[in-house]
């Protein structure tokens, strides 16, 4: 609203970002890990409270309802889950972040005025279209990829890699079509382009993860974690929100490094795991 308010908001987001960095750093060693987790909680609290008091937020009933509902479900699951089921729980949680990113991008697309994304002509800014397009695509891949990772880890489907001839070509084709749609979306902001792009991204998320075997899943879960960060950053650029940009980048790069470290720990080639079916298994080729 006022300049003072805007400055205070930026400062609060800065504090939240620093706390998130301390959280990641703290989790690197056992002595500091608990403090790290508390830093993470504080950072999140500050980010949420700051946003609630921003001028864009005018009604609170639904927000309180969503928070209470989320707290009850989240804490119940977290307390009841068996320690051995941890990897699939994290995978399931990732899928939620991915879906949330898709929904936020969808909300921004259906009501761009509320987010200040509309120019004088009544069209959504081209830059905003690119950003929300990237956010929704990465979010959708994170969602469906995490769901597949979850079903594999939970044993709902076989952990064996699923591969078929021409798989990599099919993936490449999907990627190219999504890219073409993204370019087209910048030219013409038709809803069907936006939603087709989203639907294809859901499909490619499945296709990317099915050729990866159950033993490599923890690495994949960490990789999906990284994706969810990039999705958040994409949405952050759309909404011009510094907290989202910084935290998304932080999660995106640290998640990628963590999956690399985990691969090395298991003596696996990072690229073989991520691209699945390439190299390693000659049966795939």
């Amino acid at each position: 609203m006022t300049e003072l308010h805007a400055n205070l908001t930026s400062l609060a987001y800065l504090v939240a970002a620093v706390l998130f960095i301390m959280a990641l750093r703290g989790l690197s060693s056992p002595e500091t890990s608990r403090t790290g987790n508390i830093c993470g909680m504080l950072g999140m609290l500050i980010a949420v409270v700051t946003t609630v008091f921003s001028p864009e937020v005018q009604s609170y009933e639904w927000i309180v309802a969503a928070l209470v509902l989320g707290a009850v479900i989240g804490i119940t699951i977290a307390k009841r889950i068996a320690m051995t089921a941890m990897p699939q729980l994290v995978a399931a949680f990732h899928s939620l972040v991915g879906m949330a990113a898709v929904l936020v991008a969808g909300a921004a697309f259906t009501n761009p005025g509320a987010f200040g994304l509309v120019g004088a002509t009544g069209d959504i800014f081209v830059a905003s279209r690119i950003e929300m397009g990237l956010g929704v695509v990465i979010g959708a891949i994170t969602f469906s990829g995490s769901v597949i990772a979850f079903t594999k880890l939970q044993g709902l489907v076989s952990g064996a890699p699923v591969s078929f001839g021409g798989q990599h070509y099919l993936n490449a084709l999907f990627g190219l079509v999504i890219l073409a749609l993204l370019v087209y979306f910048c030219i013409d902001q038709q809803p069907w382009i936006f939603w087709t792009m989203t639907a294809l991204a859901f499909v490619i998320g499945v296709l990317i993860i099915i050729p990866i075997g159950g033993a490599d899943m923890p690495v994949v879960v960490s990789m999906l974690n990284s994706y969810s960060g990039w999705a958040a950053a994409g949405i952050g650029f759309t909404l011009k929100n510094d907290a989202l940009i910084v935290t998304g980048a932080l999660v995106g790069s640290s998640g990628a490094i963590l999956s690399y470290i985990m691969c090395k720990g298991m003596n696996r080639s990072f690229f073989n795991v991520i691209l699945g079916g390439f190299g390693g298994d000659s049966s795939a080729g």
Partner: protein
Amino acid sequence: MEANFIQQLSIFVLAIFVGYYVVWSVTPALHTPLMAVTNAISSVIIVGALIAAGPESMSLSKALGFVAMTLAAINIFGGFTVTQRMLAMYKKKK
């Protein structure tokens, strides 16, 4: 607006470097807790959901924001709680 974008791009790139350097020294035993906490932090997407759910009048956009907020909130509360549980276990074992 252009200047603003460059500014945002700058903090984006700098944050990537911070994320890159901050996790290199992690102990293998803490891989899963670190993943869990990173996951919880990525639900900062709730900030976007809050803005979508914020307007006074009901709309598709607001409904999407509400659902997104609920999903992100599950992740926040669940993610931090589960990390705490894992870390508590780690301490007991020592």
